């Protein structure tokens, strides 16, 4: 596993400039103050740090932070395709 949930939340807090303690799984992204620009910035940082390319268009509709975290962790920690 390349990244733990806690490490990913650290990155989200840093890139979206939000208080780490407000990052609860059930919180809606809009309520957390995470904009679409913040989201693209996060995807960019994930690519820089872990070499994972995730296009914004590939992301499914997500109701809350928990779904975003699960989606990103599954992509970051996926076995490389041979």
């Amino acid at each position, binding site marked *: 596993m390349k990244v733990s949930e806690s490490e990913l939340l650290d990155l989200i807090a840093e890139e979206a*400039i939000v208080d780490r303690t407000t990052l609860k799984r059930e919180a809606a992204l809009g309520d957390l103050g995470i904009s679409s*620009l913040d989201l693209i*910035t996060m995807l*960019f940082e994930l*690519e820089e740090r872990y070499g994972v*390319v995730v296009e914004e268009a590939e992301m499914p509709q997500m109701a809350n932070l928990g779904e975003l975290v699960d989606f990103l962790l599954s992509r970051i920690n996926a076995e490389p395709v041979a």
Partner: protein
Amino acid sequence: MSPRRIAVTGLGAVSALGQTAAANWEAVREGRSGIGRHTFEGGDHAPEPVALPVALCEDGFAAPLERSMGRKVSGGLDRFALLALSAAFEALHAAGLIGHAALSDRTAIVLGHGQGGQETLEKCYERYFGLRSQRMHPASVPKIMPSSAVSAVAMQFGVHGPVFATTSACASSAHAVIQGASLVQSGLADIAIVGGSESIATPGCMAAWQAIQALADETCRPFSRNRDGMVMAEGGAVLVLESYEHAEARGAAVLGEYLGAGMSSDAFHITQPSLDGCAAAIRQAMRAGGLEGEEEVLIAAHGTGTPLNDRNEAAAIRAAIGDAAAAWPVIATKSAHGHLIGGSAALQAVIALQALRAGLAPPILNCDEPDPECEIDLVVGQVRPIRARRALVNAFAFGGLNASLAFAA
């Protein structure tokens, strides 16, 4: 009707000399230098590293701002804009204006920068040309644009009045001061947050400055016979200008007065200065500031330490001021803080105002042997007591864009 008088009610500065206006003043007064040798390393796709003299800011300069106001604005900026925002916070805090109602509708912001988000631009180029990646950081454009600093200051402090950036190379912040002052004089604003910043000491940009052969081998030696160029620096400085009535009505401490300015264009050469153009700006500033006939005026020279500038500036001072120039002390603090390009004039104004208030002219550093061709009253050796209550601050830019500012304390 005569134009409204303009008070200076706040100062802020970040440079290699220190992270407050007071720290910058203490350093130049004590003859300390912020210049050191730094190795510029451009990464895997760059040529061999190069070591050059430069004056860099220590990290942590944004800490007071972020402790007080969080990171929501400051977290997404190029370094040049963060330097400006940090200096603006200090100046507004000192002026007692953080959270003040006048910031909303009766305040202007004008900051000057020579280039903009150079560090971000070079990262983009590395990705595009070096890594051959089509994907750029989504914040690239908003970080590179030269107006990102004034936008950040407006967002951070809730300023809804006239907000824009000026650019005139090494005179950018001088033009910003003048524009901000005219917005107050004309009544479009009661307060103007003015100044500038620069952060272009990046590996790619330094190579470009080497190409123009303007950089010193060792250090900045203004008006010295053995001077051989300027030293690049990063930093930012901000002044709060305010109409006298407004400052008095809210009981603000007045640190000095902006008296007026002169501006001219050489219309001559993209890098060489002209005596007539520089002298014209100084003459206008003397007239606007009522400095003619003064016994002693402090001159904060542009004083870059390049052979051409210093000889030309000394001649322009003589031509504009005449024989009285023999008794007007000339300081050149780029010998301590280096050349902040777009931020220089504002930092030199911040220092000059403190020099007037202290009654002390800080020494020109590294002026080993005053150039006999520069026949002006150079302050060398040690700090000198002065009687001057007024100052001229010169800024002469590449492309022949000249400005001279007149202040009183």
